């Protein structure tokens, strides 16, 4: 339905429920919806499952959400980084669950959720620890692992520009997980740097059409 322009990030995440699965875009800081994560911390929802490429860096953003004990489980490709001490501590203390998914399989499982694909046979990870317990099938002489969709209750993404209808464009490699997460959640919230009038984005260049976007919040850059 019609995309809503929210005056503040707090309004955009006001209804996130305890126990929700939250898809969080970004790769490193590029495309990271920092203002929305901060609003989610203020909002207070807990017992969350977070799906994101990483599991937080430093002490802000996703790491701050984790540090407050709001996250029950992380589904990501790469939790361990030089500055992922918050996650590392929680994990070693047994206070957070972790599902590690190869990065491309993570993207494809999100896409499957958005694209109505029930499951898919994927060659990535066949014969490795990450395929343990999964159905495996040889197709055309190659081992494939059966992978299921990952959908979210909410997606928080960072885009560059929206029009008033909710069409989105991204900028450079900040595009990353945003477009695919936007297809994969019941409620999709985008933080953007700029909102323009409908018609000002060339229809050939729209990356995420408005149909996928529920709420848009304009925030100052890098906040």
């Amino acid at each position, binding site marked *: *339905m019609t995309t809503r322009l929210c005056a503040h990030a707090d309004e955009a995440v006001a209804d996130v429920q305890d126990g929700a699965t939250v898809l969080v875009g970004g790769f490193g800081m590029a495309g990271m919806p920092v203002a929305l994560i901060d609003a989610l911390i203020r909002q207070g929802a807990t017992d969350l499952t977070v799906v994101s490429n990483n599991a937080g860096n430093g002490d802000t953003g996703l790491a701050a959400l984790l540090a407050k004990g709001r996250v029950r489980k992380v589904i990501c490709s790469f939790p361990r980084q030089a500055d992922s001490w918050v996650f590392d501590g929680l994990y070693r203390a047994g206070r957070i669950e972790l599902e590690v998914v190869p990065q491309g399989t993570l993207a494809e499982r999100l896409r499957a959720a*958005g*694209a109505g694909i029930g499951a898919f046979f994927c060659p990535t990870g066949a014969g490795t620890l990450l395929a343990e317990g999964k159905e495996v099938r040889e197709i055309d002489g190659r081992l494939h692992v059966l992978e299921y969709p990952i959908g979210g209750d909410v997606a928080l993404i960072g885009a560059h520009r929206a029009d008033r209808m909710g069409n989105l464009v991204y900028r450079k490699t900040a595009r990353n997980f945003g477009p695919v997460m936007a*297809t994969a959640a019941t409620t999709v919230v985008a933080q953007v740097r700029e909102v323009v009038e409908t018609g000002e984005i060339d229809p050939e260049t729209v990356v995420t*059409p408005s*149909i996928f976007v529920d709420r848009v919040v304009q925030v100052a850059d890098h906040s």
Partner: protein
Amino acid sequence: MTQTSPTTGGQGPLGKHDIAALIARDIPHGAFVNLGIGQPTLVADHLSPGSGVVLHTENGMLNMGPAASADQIDPDLTNAGKVPVTELPGAAYFHHADSFAMMRGGHLDICVLGAFQVSARGDLANWHTGAADAIPAVGGAMDLAIGAKKVFVMMTLFTRDGAPKLVSECGYPLTGLACVDRVYTDLAVFDITPDGVRVRQTFGIDVPELAARLGLPLQTGAPEHPA
């Protein structure tokens, strides 16, 4: 447009433009809608500019505008029926895999389809007559049938020979199983519910006669699960 209570016959039967108007009225503000090809595309003519309804065409576009006038025709811009159309502000183009991912992923609020037959549990038959010499051609019918959040069918209730098209079991090859939510016809509007077929409105016929001609049990009264 004629609206009556479900238990009394109103004026009828409706023409296809009346049915299209009825469907247009039932589409919520701001909905994302696919109108398939053929008769359902008439619904677009009855959507007001203020409806906020966004039309999807499965050949890769959102916010499709009306059919192109002679001087607007652009061979690169057609609807799924290959009719030249126009673009509204806020449109977006995407490729076929993305377009059908959007559909199959349940992102469209409503699609409106024609039908040969609909069964009482919502099975749809609209792609193949099953005739031995027919050349099968499905297009996007099966994708549309299972993709949208709500599937509305627009059809006459009886064939020219008087055979019901709302039936207990489809005789034609199926397009999709249990996929139809509502059926708009010249004589009545029906909801397909877990409890069976429920009459929403009738036009020039009353419910007992309708039930008799269809040979189907029909529920009446307000639906328990409004569309």
